[in-house]
């Protein structure tokens, strides 16, 4: 396993799509980002940092 070439980023970033198929995973990822964003907003409002903090 040690002779696997180490990626050089960001030039090799695109290779992620040789492993992860966006046709399958793009939408689940975007929904996960949405859930995280809602969770963060929920906490921020819950701790009282809402509109009129």
């Amino acid at each position, binding site marked *: 396993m040690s002779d696997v070439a180490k990626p050089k980023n960001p030039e090799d*970033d*695109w290779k992620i*799509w*040789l492993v992860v*198929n966006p046709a399958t995973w793009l939408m689940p990822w975007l929904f996960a980002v949405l859930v995280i964003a809602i969770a963060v907003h929920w906490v921020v409002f819950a701790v009282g*940092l809402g509109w009129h*903090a």
Partner: protein
Amino acid sequence: MAEQSLSGLTEQQAKEFHEQFKVTYTAFVGLAALAHLFVIAANPWW
């Protein structure tokens, strides 16, 4: 059976998708940064 990637995408498809992904992701980060600047301007949280 030619050399196939784990995802099934060819190198050309992966590079093509990545170009669009970078554009959209940059726009997302830009908008998020802008939103945070508005909040900081209106109501800093520190």
